[in-house]
C-alpha cells in the first residue's frame, strides 16, 4: 500500500513547502494587539483597590444596620389591640356607629404606626379627663339640696 505517511518528502514537495513558507499570513490588527496588551498588562491600581474596599465596607454596614433594625423591631412590645365593645379601650360612651368609626380610625392609625395610635389614644384620654373635670365642677343635686333646703 502506498501510504504517503511512510515515505520521505520528495524534492518537489520540499520545494512546495518552501514556497508555502514564503507566503506570510496577515498579522493581527493594531487594535487587536492593543486590546490584548490592555488585557494582559492591566494591573489594579491602589485607587481601584480603595474603591473596592469602600464598596465592600458600605455593603457590610448596610447589612449590619438592616440586621440591627430587624432585631429592634422584634424586641418592641406588641401593639395594643382594639376590640369592639371592650370597656377599657374607650373611655367615652359612643353610639354604635360612632364606635365603628372610632375602631376604623384606630385600625388605620395602627396600620400607619404604633406611635400614631398612641397619640390618638392619649388625645382621647386627655379629652375624657377634661370632660370628667368639667363634670366635677357642676354642683351635684345632693349638694344643691343641702345648700337650698
Amino acid at each position, binding site marked *: 500500500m502506498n*501510504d*504517503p*505517511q511512510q515515505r520521505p*518528502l520528495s524534492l*518537489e*514537495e520540499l520545494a*512546495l*513547502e518552501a*514556497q*508555502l*513558507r*514564503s*507566503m*506570510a*499570513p*496577515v*498579522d*493581527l*490588527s493594531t*487594535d*487587536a*494587539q492593543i*486590546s*490584548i*496588551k490592555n*488585557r*494582559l*498588562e492591566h494591573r489594579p491600581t491602589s485607587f481601584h483597590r480603595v474603591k473596592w474596599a469602600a464598596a465592600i465596607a458600605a455593603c457590610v454596614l448596610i447589612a449590619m444596620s438592616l440586621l440591627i433594625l430587624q432585631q429592634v423591631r422584634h424586641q418592641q412590645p406588641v401593639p395594643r389591640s382594639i376590640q369592639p365593645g371592650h370597656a377599657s379601650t374607650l373611655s367615652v360612651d359612643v353610639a354604635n356607629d360612632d364606635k365603628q368609626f372610632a375602631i376604623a380610625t384606630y385600625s388605620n392609625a395602627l396600620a400607619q404606626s404604633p406611635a400614631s395610635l398612641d397619640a390618638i389614644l392619649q388625645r382621647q384620654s386627655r379629652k375624657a379627663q377634661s370632660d370628667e373635670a368639667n363634670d366635677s365642677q357642676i354642683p351635684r343635686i345632693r349638694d344643691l339640696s343641702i345648700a337650698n333646703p
Partner: protein
Amino acid sequence: MDKSTDWKKWLTEHGPTMLLLVRQWVSHRADAEDIVQEAFVRFWKSRHRAADPKAYLYVCAKRYLLEWLRAEQRRGRREQDKAIERSSISTPLFDQVVDREDHRRLKASLGALPTEQREVMILRIWGGLSFLQISEALAIPLNTASSRYRYALAALRKNLVEESIHE
C-alpha cells in the same frame, strides 16, 4: 520562567498563524481577531499548566473557536457563515506585499483543500509545530496528523501541476 512582557514575542510569532487558522472557520476578520484575542489571553493566563506551551496555544485557539462557533450556531448565524465560508479564502489571508503569480495559484489551491488538511498544513508550515504538537493541538492521532499533511501536500502539487498544464 516567562517574563510578564514575553507575551509580545509569543503574539508576534504565533498571532498571524492563529488568525490564519481561525479564519478557516470564521469568515469575518473582526470576529476571527476577537477569537484570537480571547484565546491568546486565556492561553497566557494558564500557560503554566501546559507541558508543551506551543501546542497548548493552538489547543486554546481551537477550543475557543469551537466555543464561539457553538454560540454562533445558537444565535443562528452559523448558516450565514457557512454560505460565505467558501468565499472566505478570497479575502486576504496572506500579506500581499509581493503579489506573485505562483502565490496566487498556491492560495487558490490551498483554499480548495479540505478544512482538516488545511488546518494541519497551517500548523505545520506557519506555526512550525511538530506532528506530535499538531496531534495534541487538534486532538487527533499522531498518524492522522502526519497523513493529513502528506495528503495535503500531494493534493496541492496535483492542483498546481494541473493548472500549469491547463495554461
